[in-house]
């Protein structure tokens, strides 16, 4: 297996007004990896949704705490890792989307992430606080 090449490590406050900066940084990196605008848009959307979940559910919109985004390239695969320092989430069941037959606002983020990314998992971190969400996406070459 090819060694992973780190393309980005970006730490930012877990606040909604920083999401546009995150998208800009991510687009810069993805621009060097894939020529497909559709794919780049999808990845930016999925990572953005994951950050939104951290802001709203891990930090409960209290404007405190940071998020670290790491982006790695390993062969044909992109790996996105989001680390927060909030209370640990213990169950991956929370990351399953709700039924789409219900037409109501909210609750679409997990579905979008799972639809776009090839693999999504909470990494078991050894510290008492914090969560690490890892998402993988294969690049079309």
């Amino acid at each position: 297996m090819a060694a992973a090449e780190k393309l980005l490590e970006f730490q930012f406050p877990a606040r909604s007004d920083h999401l546009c900066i995150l998208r800009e940084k991510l687009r810069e990196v993805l621009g060097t990896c894939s020529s497909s605008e559709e794919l780049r848009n999808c990845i930016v959307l999925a990572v953005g949704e994951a950050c939104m979940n951290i802001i709203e559910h891990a930090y409960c919109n209290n404007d405190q705490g940071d998020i670290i985004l790491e982006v790695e390239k390993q062969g044909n695969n992109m790996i996105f890792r989001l680390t927060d320092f909030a209370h640990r989430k213990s169950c991956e069941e929370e990351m399953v989307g709700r039924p789409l037959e219900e037409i109501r606002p909210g609750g679409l983020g997990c579905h979008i992430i799972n639809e776009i990314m090839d693999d999504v998992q909470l990494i078991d971190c050894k510290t008492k606080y914090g969560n690490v969400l890892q998402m993988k996406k294969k690049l079309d070459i």
Partner: protein
Amino acid sequence: MKSNLRSEISYDVLDLSGEIDLHHSPELRKKILGSLKNKKSLLINMEDVSYIDSSGIASLVEGFQTAKENKLSFGLLRISEPAMQVLTLTRLDKVFTLYDSIDQFQSQLQP
């Protein structure tokens, strides 16, 4: 996100542009619900929306539901590709009524 509201006699057109994310979606929600409160049908122009996430979509869904409850029309005009991508992923492309022109929307409004 930038927005502009154009008022016609029986409906409003809300022109949106730029990126709609968690930071901007409360403003979008306020504009949509504020317009519907005046008991006028609403058409959302999505032609220049370069990014929209699930929080933006949630505002659109809430507008759709509020319009329905009040027997008003609610539609999306000239959906941009990025916005269409999100609607397709969430299967809401089958829920919202999509229009190519304002005339098309106007013609289906009840007199």
